[in-house]
């Protein structure tokens, strides 16, 4: 009865592999759960209205908040989008609509290489381009550094969703006598809009937590910054500064800052899921 024994052997192998993959899945997810749990436990005590609206308190005083860092991160994200979104979308449109096979292979290859460049290198690039010439750290330079990181991300997702737009829509638009650029701008891009927004949100989530590129560009600021040409606070920078400080109160605030940052990234991801889910419906 070799058939039966084989059957049992197969079944037990199957069970074993099944258990192994479940264990690995749990292993992957559990750190996320642990981090969230720990962050909430450590950070929630320092979270209050002041945390969102007040400046950091001077050393020795308790209280204060990270209002400047939260708005700073939002401003930096906006600046980064100004750099990364148009270049990424137009580049993705080029890849999907215009480029030939050879040049596309090169562009994709370089985009992937850029995607792998350590983020601190982007900080140095932005430092050389926007800090040295103007002789000041600024929100602009920080936004530039984050924008550079967004470009390859937005580029590749835009290309992927544009390729999914059926050829028949392009043909219909061209058959109406529309020039190619108008066909792309008014028919193809709007059809893929949700996918593009998804890609942009993902890229924003990715750069929201970047610290290294901001170290010598946005630089950080313990006050409100009044202009984008001044150094500006950012959540990751503030967390870093507070976490390495010797004060307990600052440690608590660093936890709270980390919690807020991760919630921000979560909100961006949730937006992505919402859009992606909606896309499947019709």
């Amino acid at each position: 009865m070799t058939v039966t024994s084989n059957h049992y052997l197969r079944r037990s192998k199957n069970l074993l592999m099944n258990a192994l993959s479940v264990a690995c899945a749990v292993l992957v997810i559990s750190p996320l759960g642990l981090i969230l749990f720990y962050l909430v436990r450590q950070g929630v005590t320092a979270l209050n209205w002041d945390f969102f609206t007040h400046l950091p308190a001077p050393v020795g005083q308790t209280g204060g908040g990270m209002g400047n860092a939260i708005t700073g991160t939002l401003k930096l994200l906006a600046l980064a989008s100004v750099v990364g979104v148009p270049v990424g979308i137009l580049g993705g449109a080029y890849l999907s609509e215009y480029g030939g096979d050879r040049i596309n292979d090169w562009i994709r290859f370089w985009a992937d290489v850029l995607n792998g460049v350590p983020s601190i290198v982007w900080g140095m690039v932005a430092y050389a381009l926007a800090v040295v010439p103007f002789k000041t750290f600024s929100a602009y330079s920080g936004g530039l550094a984050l924008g550079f990181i967004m470009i390859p991300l937005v580029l590749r997702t835009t290309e992927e969703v544009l390729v999914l737009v059926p050829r028949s829509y392009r043909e219909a638009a061209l058959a109406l006598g529309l020039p190619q650029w108008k066909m792309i701008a008014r028919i193809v891009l709007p059809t893929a809009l949700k996918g593009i927004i998804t890609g942009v949100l993902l890229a924003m989530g990715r750069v929201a937590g970047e610290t290294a590129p901001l170290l010598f560009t946005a630089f950080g600021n313990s006050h409100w910054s009044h202009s984008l040409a001044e150094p500006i606070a950012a959540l990751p920078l503030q967390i870093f500064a507070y976490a390495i400080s010797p004060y307990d109160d600052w440690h608590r605030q660093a936890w709270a800052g980390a919690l807020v940052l991760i919630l921000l990234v979560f909100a961006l991801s949730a937006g992505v899921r919402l859009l992606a889910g909606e896309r499947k419906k019709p």
Partner: protein
Amino acid sequence: MSAQEPIATSRPPVPPATKSPPAAGSSSARAEGAAPEITFDIRDLSVFYGASQALQNVTLQVLTHQVTAIIGPSGCGKSTFIRTLNRMHELTPGARHTGSIRLLGEDLYGPGIDPTIVRRQVGMVFQKSNPFPTLSIAENVLVGLRLNGVRDKALLRERLEESLRMAALWDEVKDILGRPGIGLSGGQQQRLCIARALAVRPEVLLMDEPCSALDPLATAKIEELINSLRASYTVIIVTHNMQQAARVSDRTAFFYLGKLVEYDETRTIFMNPANPQTEAYVSGRFG
């Protein structure tokens, strides 16, 4: 069908002011005489995709305000043929052609002829209906005008109703013009696409198997519509369905293996074809 009356009369008596000078071209092109005007004069047309030849030395004249059917088995070059008539085949990488095509006397591929202008004169309806998914019914109809810079609200409103009436869709959608075009049924979507093509007022309407994805009732509606379009447009329809060709067309061209086998009045092609291949095909013995 009373619906045909307003359809036929809704188009202004004067054709739209397109820039082609028909008189100068057609007189020089043909010596055949005063018979019907020629819309397309195609001479010795061959089309290649890379190394393979899709059409061989096709010569034929498409007559104005007639319905011309293109029939033949799959892969015989029917679609390639009509795609050369609005320069859509150029979108296929590696496509090239020899020979000449004149539209109302003007060389379609002449130097300085912009394909986008050609495509405004020669509209096209595709096999699968393809209304733009982000646009409403009204926006779909008007998209060709709007994106080509027409801003005049009154004109747009007028064209919207006219085009939908010509496409025999107005009565069904007049109260839901703001709804998405892709919410309509398959047959309605295809008529919406016809309305969209008509809204830019082309001289010619190319139809690439417009009914192959539709049920018999929707097909009948489209055929009726083609019949009424004849009054104002030159229609060229590619079809797999020989009965359809027999029902809707004035003249029929039979293509086989990239060659034009026979081109004549539809009645002749179906009742008394000159070529034995044509006879075999129309009597259903191959294809």
